[in-house]
């Protein structure tokens, strides 16, 4: 009897396994398991919130998809130089306010429309009319766009702006067809129309976006016929997907995961030069940190080499300024070296006993590569020179709320962040993050950095047309920040992509975005 019962229960167990499996096996779709060789899947690390290039939301994930759908009039290459794209050449008049762009002929949009000057005008006019364009502030100085003829367009500025070409190369300046812009914001955000090598095919909210090759593309056609971007937030899952062949290219991996792929001919590893600088910021209004000697002591107390070599590995290099070498306007302005003895002397000079100072470092939770690990190392280094430091990890929304609190209610001592120059030139960080007008809650100057010489330079640097003079001004601005010791620039990040070796021609732009325009499959 007992035996029968055992058999029955075993059967029940087996059946339960079968019950979990749902549909009968005859319905297996083998196509899904073996993607055709010209279909490529890339994982992105966050939700692709919108494809509208004039909206900031979505970060790197959204920028990656947009990069492959759109083109701007000009583009910045891997070395930081400006190259023709939808415009073949350009010039500026003697008042330094009117830019003339000559447009490429024979370019088609994904909706079949011919690309002409009216599309350029419609694209930039939308910044003035569409309330939801959160990137509009980049174009405040653009007074109007006028159509000269079908293939010539004038952009008129209110006052000279020497970084204008960089702004025109920036993601926000992607050209959309005039016809497609007559649709609602929701439609534009879901299925925008550009001129790039891939066009929108389909998407599933919060999950994936699929593009297909645009066969009427004006340039050389890539080999990829279908390009799918899947949101996978978990790093271990991304790695497993690449290993099982469910994904062909992944980003956002840790050094530890690299081991399997190194020395494995089936996979290629690529590093991109990013212009994102990971740094520790200090609030100069907090008790203790309001003393410049204490801030300088902290600069001396932090061993950047140890952090970069020990934690970041290939994913970072030591930073020597608040912006990255690839960024236009960069100057090596390192004033401090690792010197814990000097740090202790400075603290004594400032009148603080060992253990008298206590600070909390606020860290985001994985928004930047190994952010909290870096913070913990810093806390340890501060402890060694006699400053009590601890780390608090926050989800991004709480982090923003804390750091951007107005002066009277701001209780943040130090925090970790990684600012990126999205436009590829210095003003995006120098003129915005460090501006006096951007004290919280208006902006991110939660260091409460304030310097009259800096303000003067900031207000005139973009009006300066002499390149040498401008570079000197940028250098001086970086120097002033370093002298005031409100930032400890620690690392310049390198984005890393691992992909199936059958792919080639992949590029990583300075904004950590993967570009498939020249992708080949062997």
């Amino acid at each position, binding site marked *: 009897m007992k035996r029968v019962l055992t058999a029955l229960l075993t059967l029940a167990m087996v059946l339960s396994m079968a019950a979990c499996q*749902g549909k009968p096996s005859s319905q297996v779709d083998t196509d899904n398991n073996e993607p055709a060789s010209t279909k490529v899947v890339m994982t992105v690390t966050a939700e692709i919130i919108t494809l509208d290039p004039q909206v900031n939301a979505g970060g790197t994930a959204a920028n990656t998809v947009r990069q492959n759908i759109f083109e701007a009039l000009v583009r910045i290459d891997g070395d930081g130089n400006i190259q023709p794209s939808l415009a073949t050449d350009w010039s500026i008049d003697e008042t330094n306010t009117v830019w003339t762009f000559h447009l490429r002929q024979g370019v088609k949009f994904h909706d079949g429309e011919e690309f002409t000057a009216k599309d350029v005008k419609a694209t930039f006019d939308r910044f003035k009319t569409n*309330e939801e364009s959160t990137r509009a502030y980049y174009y405040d100085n653009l007074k109007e766009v006028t159509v000269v003829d079908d293939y010539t367009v004038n952009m008129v500025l209110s006052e000279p702006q020497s970084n204008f070409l960089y702004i025109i190369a920036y993601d926000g300046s992607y050209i959309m067809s005039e016809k497609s812009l007559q649709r609602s914001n929701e439609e534009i955000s879901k299925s925008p129309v550009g001129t790039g090598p891939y066009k929108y095919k389909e998407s599933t909210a919060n999950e994936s976006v699929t593009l297909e090759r645009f066969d009427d593309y004006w340039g050389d056609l890539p080999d990829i016929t279908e390009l799918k971007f899947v949101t*996978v937030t978990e790093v271990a899952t991304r790695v497993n997907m690449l290993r099982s062949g*469910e994904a062909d290219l992944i980003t956002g991996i840790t050094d530890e995961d690299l081991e399997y792929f190194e020395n494995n001919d089936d996979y290629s590893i690529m590093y991109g030069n990013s212009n994102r600088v990971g740094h520790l910021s200090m609030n100069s209004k907090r008790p203790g940190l309001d003393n410049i000697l204490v801030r300088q002591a902290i600069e001396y107390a932090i061993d950047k080499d140890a952090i970069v070599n020990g934690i970041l590995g290939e994913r970072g290099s030591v930073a020597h300024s608040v912006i990255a070498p690839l960024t236009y306007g960069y100057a090596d302005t390192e004033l401090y070296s690792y010197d814990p003895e000097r740090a202790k002397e400075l603290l004594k000079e400032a009148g603080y006993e060992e253990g008298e100072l206590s600070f909390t470092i606020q860290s985001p939770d994985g928004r930047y590569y190994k952010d909290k690990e870096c913070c913990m190392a810093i806390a340890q280094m501060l402890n060694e020179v006699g400053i009590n430091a601890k780390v608090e990890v926050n989800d991004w929304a709480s982090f923003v709320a804390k750091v951007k609190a107005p002066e009277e209610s701001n209780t943040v001592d130090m925090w970790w962040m990684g600012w990126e120059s999205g436009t590829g030139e210095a003003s995006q960080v120098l003129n915005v993050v460090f501006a006096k007008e951007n004290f919280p809650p208006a902006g991110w100057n939660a260091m409460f950095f304030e310097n009259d010489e800096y303000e003067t330079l900031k207000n005139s640097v973009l009006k300066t047309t002499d390149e040498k003079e401008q570079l000197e001004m940028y250098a001086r601005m970086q120097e002033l920040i370093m002298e005031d010791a409100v930032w400890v620039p620690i690392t310049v990040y390198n984005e890393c992509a691992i992909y199936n070796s059958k792919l080639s021609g992949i590029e990583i732009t300075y904004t950590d975005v993967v570009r498939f325009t020249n992708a080949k499959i062997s």
Partner: protein
Amino acid sequence: MKYVLKRLCSAVIVLFVMSVVIFLIIHWIPGDPAEIYAGTGASASTVETVRKTMGLDRPLVVQYVDWLKGVFQGDFGISLSTKEEILPTLATKFINTLQLSVYGAAFAIICGIGLGVLSALYHNTIIDVFSMLVAIIGISMPVYWVGMLLVMVFSIQLGIFPVTGNETWLSYVLPSICIGLNSLAVITRMTRSSMLEVLNEDYIVTAVAKGLRKPSIYFVHALKNAMIPIITTIGMQFGYLMGGSVLTETVFVYPGLGKYLVDSIQARDYPAIQASLLVLVTVFIIVNFLVDLAYFMLNPRLRSEG
């Protein structure tokens, strides 16, 4: 009937109170959806404009009443981050999670009761030890780790099941096991102890003495009487399966409600958080209600009292 009505009334009240609590909590936690949406570089005036278009500049009470009005009309509003209607997305995600939970629960119930009964019948034998070992493992291994192990072995090494997705029936196997393992352990232990207790009752001894057939003793008399605590456990476990699917869904990139909720919380997407939490609360209430009904059916004493 009166009992059922009473339970329904209290369910509605709980739902209303929860809607207020949910609304207050998510507005109270730090973080501003407008700030997140506008992005790090955005100017203060841009953030302000975004806040206006999101309708977040209105007083809290007005926002709550508007939201509640919408919910009554079956309109959960528009997502602050994707700008798409919440209801269709939520419905798909909910069905996906429900599907996964049902598979996980089926796995947990059938295997759990099976193992539990076996180990009670073969008390203190190697079978009992084995079942308890499974239960200990199931209860103590973190879901995340189980998921990773399953993928390592069955997807990467053996290549039987896909790592992610929900396209074919094969892709449901690993997540179902992963999500159900913990419940399986709880159900196994509950079944075992409940069965052991019942097996010692006088009426079972009587039944054995009477010479009734063993299966009829175990399944008709013993298991049925042992079911009440097991059903409570199953009911609670199902609620947890629905709400606790976050980790499994993250590991397997399964497009379900749990993952949707976490993404929404990160973006501080108020209407999406409210909608998904409301759905989860409703599921909990319904499951509890069904459990109560099941008691009612199984326990005649409740029927006369009710």
